[in-house]
């Protein structure tokens, strides 16, 4: 059984799943940047008391699952989302969906994901893919990160659906419940909602660790890493930062470029000239994040490593924070047509 489903590649897995499933459900306007922006995907958080893979816990995007939920909700499309206790039940419901012609989004862990290169297989459980059919024992898989559709045996799929640890997917599957076209007016409204929510996320979350203040907080901490952790561990921490920022899924520059692309697309729906200017600011910020990554690489490769070099890292991050703060303030002041 193979559903009539179009695999599309995306920068980020959840954006990709959201885009492909919504397109399948008749939302022809949706693109990856629109899904990301409407779902208010841009974020920053640095959780100093938490460790991931023995390194710092840093995220450049919103919590897993939210982009899909928010985007569907903004477009008035009901969402089905289920978790399972039993593996048999999880496969049974999956098969029922496929039999009903419904491609299904699944949250999975990447450690046992056989088609991923070994180097990428850490215990990371918030990856997303779409199952769109089954032939013999092979489930047909559309993984948004991959250029081509691929497949997993039923054992392999069960294993990644029931990966354990932080964010354990517990067989989680999800899909839009209704097939329906969406009007441009709905998209316009959704864009506005998405932007306003993102302004709140980046500017108005109390406490020092999230949003723009989170970037500055990490900039300050990085300035202390060399003394506190020693050069080697500080290098490993910076390597982790770069991976979170640039590795598969961010589209480059810690999602800042996708967000800039979103604002450009937003302009085609709302002819507000500020959107274009603000888009350019996010491009600039993304470029600074990339320069910071190059600086970090110099440190973790041991080419440079003085305190001054760490200070340059902090300066880059503060520069990004300045730009993004202005950009979000400008977004919050946009006069949306009624």
């Amino acid at each position, binding site marked *: 059984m193979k559903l009539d489903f179009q695999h599309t590649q995306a*920068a980020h897995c959840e954006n990709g799943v959201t885009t492909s499933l919504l397109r399948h459900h008749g939302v022809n306007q949706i693109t990856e*940047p629109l899904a990301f922006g409407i779902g208010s995907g841009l974020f920053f958080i640095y959780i100093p008391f938490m460790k991931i893979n023995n390194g710092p816990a840093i995220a450049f995007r919103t919590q897993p699952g939210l982009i899909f939920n928010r985007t569907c909700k903004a477009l008035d499309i009901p969402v089905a989302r289920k978790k399972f206790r039993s593996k048999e039940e999880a496969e049974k419901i999956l098969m029922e969906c496929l039999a009903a012609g419904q491609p299904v989004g699944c949250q999975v862990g990447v450690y046992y994901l056989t088609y991923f290169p070994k180097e990428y297989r850490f215990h990371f459980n918030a990856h997303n893919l779409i199952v769109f059919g089954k032939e013999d024992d092979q489930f047909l898989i559309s993984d948004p990160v991959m*250029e*081509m559709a691929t497949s997993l045996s039923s054992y392999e799929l069960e294993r990644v659906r029931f990966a354990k*640890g932080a964010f354990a997917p517990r067989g989680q599957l999800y899909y839009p419940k209704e097939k329906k076209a969406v009007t441009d007016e709905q998209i316009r409204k959704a864009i506005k909602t998405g932007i306003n929510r993102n302004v709140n996320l980046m500017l108005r979350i109390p406490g020092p660790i999230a949003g723009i203040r989170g970037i500055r907080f990490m900039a300050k901490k990085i300035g202390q890493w060399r003394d506190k952790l020693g050069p080697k561990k500080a290098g*490993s921490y910076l390597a982790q930062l770069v*991976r979170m920022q640039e590795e598969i899924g961010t589209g480059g520059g810690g999602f800042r470029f996708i967000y800039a692309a979103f604002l450009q697309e937003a302009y085609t729906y709302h002819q507000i000239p500020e959107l274009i200017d603000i888009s350019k600011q996010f491009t600039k910020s993304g*470029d600074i994040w990339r320069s910071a990554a190059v600086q970090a690489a110099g440190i*973790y490769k041991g080419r440079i490593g003085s305190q001054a070099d760490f200070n340059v890292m902090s300066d880059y991050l503060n520069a990004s924070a300045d730009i993004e703060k202005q950009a979000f303030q400008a977004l919050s002041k946009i006069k949306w047509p009624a």
Partner: protein
Amino acid sequence: MKKDELPQDLGALGKITGEVCYVVDESGNYTTVLSNGWEVKSSALEVAWKDVEQRIQAAHQKVLNKEASPILFFMELRVMDIPIVAAYTGFWKWQVKRHLKYKVFEKLSASGLARYAEVFEVSVEELKTMKVDET
């Protein structure tokens, strides 16, 4: 990032698939281009794996010194931590922590050993001796 500045440094993922990157074209519009990788990223990944490798070595030595049980070695080898080992084996975290002690491990029941061996994808014999043949 401008379209012509997108790095194409072949990395581990690039051998399997290009990744979508968002770049600005000549007329200032966003577009997507596939990248084979970026040296800055692949060296970050290398650092991460080197750290893993060192933790495995350190764990191996600790077990030889009888300061830790082979569970520690396999936990590092499989890039796991205590909560992950606990979740996969079904033991409580405090139990896993105890089993990391060499003396406690020696007294572990056959079924307990089998549970660990299964999760680490080795035989009970390999679990005890840390002799695994892997490439």
